[in-house]
């Protein structure tokens, strides 16, 4: 039977299926691991309501823990408190940048937001220039927006703060 500490170590090696350079623990979606007589109980929280990776993540967590000798592994999805990009660890933000995704900047937007074109200047993860322009509020997944760097002319994705 795995201890809770050992289970967390195992989970540190379970990658996010969409962004495999960071793990599910670095993403901040594993909220709780409890070892009981019957086995392990893991609580995860979804990133976005409709994120298609949610079920794959639960399955990878279950597989990794069972393979490591976790016994009966149950995965519970818990909504509250809602996930925020503020839970992505600092080292993971660096990994995102190295992978070509601009990490979420600042705090998640709370309270009233102005509705207009956002003149946000993001640093390009490749060349570091802040001369960038937003191409689309939504990228290849719900959690990312699409930008283009006007210095190196490469497109890049931005992990949106929520």
């Amino acid at each position, binding site marked *: 039977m795995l201890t809770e500490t050992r289970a967390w170590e195992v989970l540190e090696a379970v990658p996010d299926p969409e962004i495999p350079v960071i793990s599910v623990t670095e993403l901040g979606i594993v909220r709780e691991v409890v070892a009981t007589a019957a086995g392990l109980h893991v609580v995860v929280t*979804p990133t*976005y*309501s*409709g*994120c*298609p990776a949610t079920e794959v993540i639960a399955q990878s967590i279950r597989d990794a823990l069972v393979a490591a000798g976790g016994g009966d592994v149950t995965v519970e999805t818990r*909504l*509250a*408190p*809602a*996930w*925020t990009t503020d839970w992505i660890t600092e080292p993971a933000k660096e990994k995102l940048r190295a992978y070509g995704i601009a990490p979420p900047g600042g705090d*998640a*937007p709370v309270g009233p*937001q102005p*509705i*207009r*074109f*956002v003149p946000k200047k993001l640093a390009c993860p490749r060349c570091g220039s802040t001369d960038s322009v937003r*191409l*689309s*509020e*939504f*990228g*290849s*997944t*719900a959690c990312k927006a*699409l930008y283009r760097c006007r210095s190196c002319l490469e497109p890049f994705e931005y992990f*949106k703060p*929520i």
Partner: protein
Amino acid sequence: MTQQMTSPEHIEYVLRLGDNALILGQRLSEWCGHAPVLEEDMALANMSLDLIGQARMLLTHAGRLEGRGRDEDQLAFLRTEPNYRNLTLCELPNQDFARTMVRNFLYSSFQKLLWERLMTSSDAELAAIAAKSIKEARYHAQHAGDWVIRLGDGTAESHARAQGALDYLWPYTAEFFAATPVDDTVAAAGVGPAWSELETAWEALVLPVLAEATLTVPARTPFRSYGKFGRHSEHMGHLLAEMQIMQRTYPGAQW
């Protein structure tokens, strides 16, 4: 989940929220592969996914509150038209990109206000769903608001289409604020917000953007729609036929 005293109004209220998300999510998904540019194709598909994700949580919750063993799939795919409780606005055809964006703007602005208030609902599960969904609704409202301004204050063609969309959709927004006994009951129980203050808050959010888009807001008319009472437009049956065909043809089919 503990079986507290759940009123039929409470169940209907959650069902209505779930149906709004489900039906608009289904409509937006029709754009997949057809949007004017690739970026918007992805944006619309992503927003559709958000809405269907919200619908899954809400319908699952409604099914549990109801306690008759109906799960999200049974509620989404096996009801008949009069048993859906979505706003008529959500089921109207996409028509063109302008109408799709104006609708998203009117609806997601309303939904943003509603989720904000539902975060303090006495129904803990609904409050959790609201806290999750508000983050998504903010992005939807911002995206659609950007487009409303861009189209309205754009070329003669884009302005005409955006104005046409607003003229067509505006009468249906009266239904947002038509308080029903369901709203009164859930407000009294602390499940949902008082309905009376929502309209002013919504107009404060929506009118400045429409003005910046140089669009003329139509006058209110006696026209009323009744989707949330289960009386739908002629478009609803066609939408359901497409959405339900797999479950109707292969009952119990699973992915």
